[in-house]
């Protein structure tokens, strides 16, 4: 199956006179690509997904599937498979009936339906439960039925609305891998809505981080994590030390410390962000920022050592894997910490 290209052009959703829930959002999804819409609740990611699927009407903009404008089409003519957060299985039909439904709606012959349903259930490893009712299944099984039901119609686009958020942690990891495998195998263009940054990083080819109805940044998981475009993205994706500083003469001042910025910065107040696990207890060198400070608190959890180090009036959280034979530093100890200049993220401070 060759994937389908999906293009969103200035997609907008307004409710009354409120600020738009989705604000002129444009996005080009390559055939077969797995795109994540990632953001906090209320950022417009689910609204965007629902507009793509035709479940809510767009106030403006267009949705193009392989160049064809589907914006005005009702959901039953869009040919998109949707997996809902609460699965939305048909409670009065058994598993096979649920999966067969979309094929029946397409007027397919009985024998053909049975074969396809069987194949789809095998794909999600549920062939043995075909005669069960949804309420007799566990959450993970229901989720797989929902996935099979959406995939069996061979939709042009697969829309996943927080499909993993109702599962427990272990199951979530399993389903994560499973969805990813199936998506790769079928090469189906997929939009995946989630508020969980780890999920998005692990599964998606590209991620659109959303805030206030707009895309704050679009990029590969690596781009988003290593080169966040804004303080919001850096904060939302992964964890960061967030330290107030001031840029002057191309360098950064934090209290009485002075460190290097990875790129020229305009003078003025800035927020400096550093990932805790990129800071090490070493002396730096060329291309490194090095700071001396004192250990304020040590948290030792076996595999990871977390230390809060105060320096220049700021607190740096340092996280390192524990090393064999190296005892953790004591609270109050004077230490030297360092990180690569390239790992120093600098954003002009948003003045309120």
């Amino acid at each position, binding site marked *: 199956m060759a994937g389908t290209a999906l293009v969103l052009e200035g997609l907008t959703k307004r409710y009354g006179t409120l600020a738009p829930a989705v604000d002129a959002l444009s996005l080009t999804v390559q055939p077969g690509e797995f795109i994540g819409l990632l953001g906090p609740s209320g950022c417009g990611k689910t609204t965007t997904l629902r507009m793509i699927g035709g*479940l809510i009407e767009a106030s403006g903009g267009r949705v193009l599937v392989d160049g064809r404008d589907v914006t005005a089409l009702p*959901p*039953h003519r869009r040919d998109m498979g949707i997996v809902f957060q*609460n699965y939305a*299985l048909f*409670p*009065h039909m058994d598993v096979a009936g649920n999966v067969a439904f979309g094929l029946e*709606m397409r007027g397919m012959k009985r024998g053909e339906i049975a074969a396809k349903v069987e194949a789809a259930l095998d794909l999600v490893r549920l062939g043995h439960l075909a005669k069960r009712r949804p309420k007799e299944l566990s959450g993970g099984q229901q989720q797989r039925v929902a996935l099979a039901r959406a995939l069996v119609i061979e939709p042009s686009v697969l829309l996943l609305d927080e499909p993993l958020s109702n599962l427990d942690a272990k199951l979530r990891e399993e389903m994560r891998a499973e969805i990813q495998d199936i998506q790769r195998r079928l090469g189906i263009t997929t939009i995946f809505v989630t508020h969980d940054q780890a999920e998005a990083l692990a599964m998606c080819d590209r991620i659109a981080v959303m805030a206030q109805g707009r895309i704050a940044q679009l990029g590969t998981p690596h781009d988003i994590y290593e080169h966040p475009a804004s303080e919001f993205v850096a904060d939302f994706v992964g964890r960061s030390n967030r330290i107030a500083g001031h840029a002057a003469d191309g360098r950064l001042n934090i209290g009485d410390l002075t460190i290097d910025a990875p790129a020229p910065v305009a003078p003025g107040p800035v927020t400096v962000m550093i990932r805790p696990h990129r800071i090490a207890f070493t002396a730096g060198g060329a291309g490194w920022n090095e700071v001396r400070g004192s250990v304020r608190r040590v948290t030792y959890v076996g595999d990871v050592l977390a230390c809060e180090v105060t320096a220049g009036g700021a607190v740096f959280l340092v996280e390192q894997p524990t090393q064999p034979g190296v005892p953790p530093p004591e609270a109050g100890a004077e230490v030297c910490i360092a990180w690569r200049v390239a790992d120093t993220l600098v954003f002009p401070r948003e003045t309120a």
Partner: protein
Amino acid sequence: MIGRAAHRALIAALFLFLLAPVVLVIPMSFSADAFLVWPPSGFSLRWYTAMWRETKLMEAARNSILLACLVCAATLVLAMPAALVLARGRFRGREALVALLTAPLLLPTIVLALALLILFVGYGLIGSWPGLLLAHLLVALPYGIRVLMTAVSTLPPAVEEAASSLGAAPWRVFRRITLPLMLPGVAATAAIVFLVSFDEVVISLFVVGPELTTLPVAMFRYVESRTDPLVAAVSALLVLLTLSIVIVLERAVGLGRALGK
């Protein structure tokens, strides 16, 4: 402990108060006397056999059953789309419309009955099937809409969205998903509306005619002129009918669930 015992006693007293008249009818119906007297001097089945020969009552009973079925069918056909729109729709004046459609529940029935009498006389609807049907629909529809609205509001909307994303046009979503999921509510509506119509007496009194009457009206007329326990036998059968409808509903779908509680 005393509080709990008092509580139980209170509940028992309330049940007794509510059910005593109904329970009283049953021994009464087996009376061997020619008059309604308590306690009966002896017991027999004579009134159960006598009632079948009372052609006026029997014809009225057939009318009532047919009427209740018609009202039931018409209410479902009319109330279903109304309930879907009222429970789902977000439009201006929705609340007002719900209030308006359920207003007949709050109006004094006698006022409705008088209004219908005045209206129906002009159109020659008194004592006619269309007249009775219209009059009963007026009282049945508010119940139908209420109960069906509750049934609609308990449906998860995502299930219908899923069906439509799988290629089902709106009508097929309704037939394959919405309607089957609403069946308990539909059954409850049917039962309630049937009983409302079957039991309706005030409005019927005004709109029935010499050729066409309903069972409650016929019973009312009967006790105006006769004082034998025959009506007690009819009443006992009505209690049985009502009870069996409620029990069947309870067994089939669970009354609580049917009413959306």
